């Protein structure tokens, strides 16, 4: 679902231009408002949606889950650590909301401090293991982590 900009809400601040990893959010040279210059190339990461301070960027929903003329709006609340979606059909009768966590730890507190790690030895360089394996995949804690070992269960539904 590529993103698009509501021109009337955009104030041309450039937050989306700054954040877009695909470099497709740009400022229109004449109107000075942001636009997605190549929706085909949109990774649909919604970085621009979360960065926009005016909720001026929305997504075009795919026709397989909502008929044409619907509205898909997103509110990513970083301070709460959640993302909320609202999908509304054009007749207004179907109005669905979804709320999901996007982080479980405060931002910036769980970043590995790689610069503080010791440089790899020659033996490590020649090994087939990647950096910090098997520690990072936790094989040294007694096997791979699974849903079962973490007390979780596979639920019915669509998983990607």
């Amino acid at each position: 679902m590529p993103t698009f900009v509501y021109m009337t809400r955009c104030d041309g601040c450039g937050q989306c231009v700054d954040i877009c990893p695909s470099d497709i959010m740009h400022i229109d040279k004449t109107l000075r408002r942001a636009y997605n210059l190549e929706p085909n190339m949109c990774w649909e990461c919604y970085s621009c949606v979360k960065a926009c301070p005016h909720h001026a960027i929305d997504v075009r929903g795919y026709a397989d889950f909502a008929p044409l003329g619907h509205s898909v709006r997103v509110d990513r609340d970083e301070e709460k650590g959640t993302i909320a979606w609202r999908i509304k059909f054009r007749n207004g009768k179907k109005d669905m909301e979804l709320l999901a966590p996007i982080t479980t730890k405060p931002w910036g507190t769980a970043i590995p401090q790689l610069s503080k790690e010791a440089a790899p030895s020659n033996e490590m360089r020649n090994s087939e293991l990647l950096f910090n394996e098997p520690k990072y995949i936790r094989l040294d804690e007694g096997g791979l982590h699974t849903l079962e070992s973490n007390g979780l269960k596979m639920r019915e539904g669509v998983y990607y």
Partner: protein
Amino acid sequence: MFTSNPFSELSAFIPAAVMQAYIILMVLMVIGGTVLDMMHKKSAQYFFENAKKAQKNAKRSVSTGEKATIAVKVLLDEVLTSGEFCNVKRRLSHLLTMYGFVIFVVTTAILIFGYATPEASAPVILPLLWHIGALMLAVGGYWFWFFIRVDVSAEGLTWYRLERTDLFIVSLLATSTFGLIWSFTQSQGITGWSTLFFVLFIISSTTLFGSVFWSKFAHMFFKPAAAFQKRVTRADGSRENLPAEYDLTDPAVQAKFPDIPEYMGKNPAYMGHGIKREPANHY
């Protein structure tokens, strides 16, 4: 220079009545330009249709008292302190240009209508405010023009690239700059240059007030209305189709969205600022 009234010296060449007529003409041009702009872009029609659509989606009605509170909030937050800007630099630049423009225009009108004769000596504060207003306008405007506007800072376009969209900011900058240089050359007694910069000052100010139909001058009238409408949609629950604001500790919310308590616990922590921890300058 800062304490001398440039219009009092000008009255030796141009009668005060002509200056006053010019001010009235500019006011009429702003009114006419705004009305034409509104009719051409159908912005008022769009605004009211949008408001009606929002009202249809409203979950509760907003009382007149509440609307008055919202109007006060809009005045304090969006109008007086440019609160809609999330970027501090943009906000400061806008505040400088806005207050500079207001001070500059108001003092110009007072000086021309009250003290535009050599005999009438204006209180020192008035010409001082006129110069300070023009300076604030120039500082905020040039800061924006060279460093802040995103087509230069993010898009890598040259600062001298002009579009019709730039009509407002360029005529604002030209008015304040030529006004200041005119006042300086006049106070130094450099007659030829003073006349030249006065002519440039009048051309730029006429462009500023006469080009409302083509420029974004009218934003100072419709922006507060749009900000008011935006706050009303938040108050009446229509929220422009945005999702509701959830209280994550509310058991009803946790029952509706079980992922929240499962992954974040019953009392989710404050997560702090995410991408806003760093300014947007990764171009």
